[in-house]
């Protein structure tokens, strides 16, 4: 780190540039400033000095000096309350826009000292006590607004231990981001009616209604479609088949999604994808520049949502 970077103000607030590896809190990472209470304490010391001065009272002087010294020594203790902690990023989970994205953070206390107060903050703050040589696993949440990649931002580890006169903090940035899917539209608009990809017969039936037979269960078949009665009788595991190859398929196409702008359309598409996945029908998915063949199941579902998020 060169001198210019070292004195950049943003280091105090948003931390150094984002990293992947675990961060050990040391003198480079830890900042200490008096709190409001600390400033109050300084005023108290000044007042005691004034009393001592006016009355020429040596013990009052002594008390003032002792408190001033306590104030000073507390800086070291404040530093000690964070130094040596190892903060490491964990995983993150994708969420829909508007929900809180969770980021896992692991904090390890390698020392022999109990940390009696640690606050860790992203948008919300959590407090914890750490035993010597222990690791804490924390999930921090951050409210998302837009689809796309949501950066975790600065994780601030802080403490006011021991006396609350100083706040010591360490802003850390990790390469930690969560994928944010578009917010599913509220409106329950029926799936778009599309000409079957193969049939091109000019009509389409709503899938899900047309039961036409049973088939040996295959991994990936929706649980709802399992023929439980047959399963209960011990006949084996079967999946109910609906619609038929062509008729039970729908195609969720960007072009067919209603909406005034891109976001609204994506939002609607997202709604359809969620609904389709829940109903268990196969759905094809197309965005400008992307076409996914009809399928069903978590992998497909995720692929569609990711495409929506990053469109």
């Amino acid at each position, binding site marked *: 780190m060169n001198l210019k970077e070292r004195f950049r103000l943003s280091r105090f607030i948003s931390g150094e540039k984002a990293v992947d590896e675990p961060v050990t809190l040391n003198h480079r990472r830890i900042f200490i400033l008096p709190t409001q209470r600390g400033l109050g304490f300084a005023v*108290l010391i000044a007042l005691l000095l004034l*009393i001592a001065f*006016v009355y020429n009272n040596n*013990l009052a002087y002594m008390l003032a000096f002792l408190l001033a010294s306590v104030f*000073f*020594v507390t800086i070291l203790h404040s530093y*000690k309350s964070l130094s*040596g902690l190892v903060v490491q990023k964990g995983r993150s989970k994708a969420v829909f826009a508007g929900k809180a994205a969770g980021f896992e953070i692991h904090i390890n206390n*390698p020392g022999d000292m109990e940390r009696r107060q640690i606050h860790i903050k992203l948008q919300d703050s959590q407090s914890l006590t750490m035993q010597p040589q222990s690791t804490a696993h924390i999930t921090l949440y951050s409210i998302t607004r837009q689809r796309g990649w949501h950066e975790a931002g600065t994780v601030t580890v802080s403490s*006011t231990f021991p006396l609350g006169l100083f706040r010591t903090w360490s802003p850390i940035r990790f390469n930690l981001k969560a994928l944010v899917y578009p917010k599913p539209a509220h409106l329950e608009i029926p799936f778009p009616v599309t000409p079957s990809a193969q049939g091109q017969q000019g009509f389409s039936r709503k899938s899900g209604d047309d039961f036409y037979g049973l088939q040996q269960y295959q991994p990936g078949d929706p649980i709802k479609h399992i023929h439980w009665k047959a399963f209960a009788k011990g006949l084996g595991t079967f999946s109910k088949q609906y619609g038929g190859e062509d008729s039970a398929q729908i195609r969720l196409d960007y072009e067919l999604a209603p909406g005034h702008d891109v976001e609204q359309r994506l939002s609607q598409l997202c709604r359809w994808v969620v609904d389709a996945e829940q109903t268990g029908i196969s759905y094809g998915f197309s965005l400008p520049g992307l076409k996914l063949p009809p399928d069903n199941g978590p992998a497909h579902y995720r692929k569609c949502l990711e495409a929506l998020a990053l469109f």
Partner: protein
Amino acid sequence: MMMKTELDKNVLIFLLSAIGLIVFPHVYHIPTAVFGFFCLLLAWRFAGVWKPNLLPGTAVIFLLAACGIALLYSLHQGIFGRDAGTNLFITALGLKLLEIRKERDLYLISYLAFIVAASQFLYEQSILMAAYILLVCCLLLATLVTINSCKAQTLASLKTALIITVQAIPIAVALFILFPRLEAPRWMLFNEPRQTRSGLSDTMEPGSISNLVKSYELVFRVKFAGAIPPPEQRYWRGPVLSYTDGKRWTPAAFLKPLKSPAVTGAPYQYTMLMEPQDKNWIFALDMPKGFSPPLSLNAGYQLITSDSPGKRAEYQVTSYTDYNTGPINPGEYRTATQLPGEPSDRIKQLVSRLHGFDSPPDDFIKQLLNHFRAEDFHYTLTPPVIEENPIESFLFKTRYGFCSHYASAFVYLMRVAHIPARVVTGYQGGELNPVGDFLEIRQADAHAWAEVWLENRGWVRVDPTAAIAPERIEPEINVTRQTAYGIATADKYLPLPAYNWLKHTRQLWTSVDYNWQRWVINYDNKSQSGFLSSFGINDLKAMIYWMIAVIGSITAVLCWFLLYQKPKTADKVLLIYSRFCNKLAKHGLVKNPGEGAKDFAERAKIKLPERAEAIDRITAVFIRLRYGRTATGEDLQQLKTLVGLFRA
């Protein structure tokens, strides 16, 4: 910032107890009404810890505040000054106790409590009080620690507070010694209700001086231009008391101005630095001869000043210890032989047994002093109180007395034998301050002795106390002399080892206490510059440099002490792993900074295919230890073994 919606019960109990302890010693200093009011509020708040419903609402607090203000107003002290300020802060503290809503309030209360703790020192500065306040401040700090811990752990908080306080002491002491002491400017001094200063009074009763000898308060300093008189000559002359009613001694009105005494021998030239006094007496070395206005000599050869005695003043005086006051006039003779009534038969018998009536005055004086020495007379600071006939009771019954007893009994017996005699009060001795090369005379040196008029010699000083307690006159620098001696005679009947032990402990304690008084309580502008100049620190600039240097070095030591940590488990893992890396380095495999353990292992495996398995296992254990969630001590052991076995 942590916000507890409900304040922790433990924190509150902790804080309230600390505050109770801080205010408690004020019971002696503040009006009962204020103390009672505070106790009421504290008890109320304590009850509120368990029953929050009991706590008053805003309206009631307002009413209580009004009561508090009315109470303070009724004391007519205003808001400035020691007493008024103390009352104000204690009342405010009590009221604030009832209104604890947020963490912020706890802090405000703690800060107020610190101020109240400091105000304690304006009343009492004993070493015990200092220790007490230090402990209670530790408690207050522990409260703050508890507030700032996620879980309230009382013992751990106390320990932390104690550690912080102990670590803070060196810097505090350095600041104490080096922080420039200045006298407060006049406008800052509040008009205190005038404190009556302790000091000699113009009357004397048996036992009246003994309350002074416990005070180490400085009366005056004397700096001699040449030689310093020997200790047995250091009698600092104060009021002369000639008239007695049998119990109380008062100065007599002298009829005629006296003649100046004839002096011989070497003069002592000196400068007197008087501390503020109530009376305009200047305690010159017996006998003052050379002085200039505003000083004048009164009929009792006592120097008085016409200046206000209320501030420090400096006077140049010359004295001669060898003097002759010459003949006395009839008026003086009359007052010097005055008796309150016919002496009792017992006293007359005593005087005639000691040949008071049939031998020259010189012999009688010797006989009487011998009598004091040979008989069972004791010298004590705490003589029994004698109401009736004090002189006779002292001579025949109690025989425990202080200098005033001996002086008055001696003078009385002299007068019975028709020898003119009178009591002189003042100070005796004084301690040489080697730093400033001056004598310091304290209230503890207050003394009373006798003067006898002898033919051809004039008034001659006789100190009957010297017959009893030669220690008081002999050159003894040990300041514990009076107290130690006094108590020792009182404890005479203890078995010897226990008595010796007790005596030693007491001597030790009194000397500790004296040094506390001298070096801590009285450490002022002058003693500071005296002390510091012995280290070559002479001006403010040097003081500040030294302060920075000393605090800096203490901080460095503290930093090392606090922040240096032994290699911990995590570092042990790295240590073992680096041993592994070193082994690989022999093959030219050097781990790049920033290269992950896994990548490095892959690289190593290509170069050392025959060791691939070992490399993989070591890397796996290392990663588990370093980044895994469930690393155990066994893993560490395993890594150690694996690396140990690894032969590159």
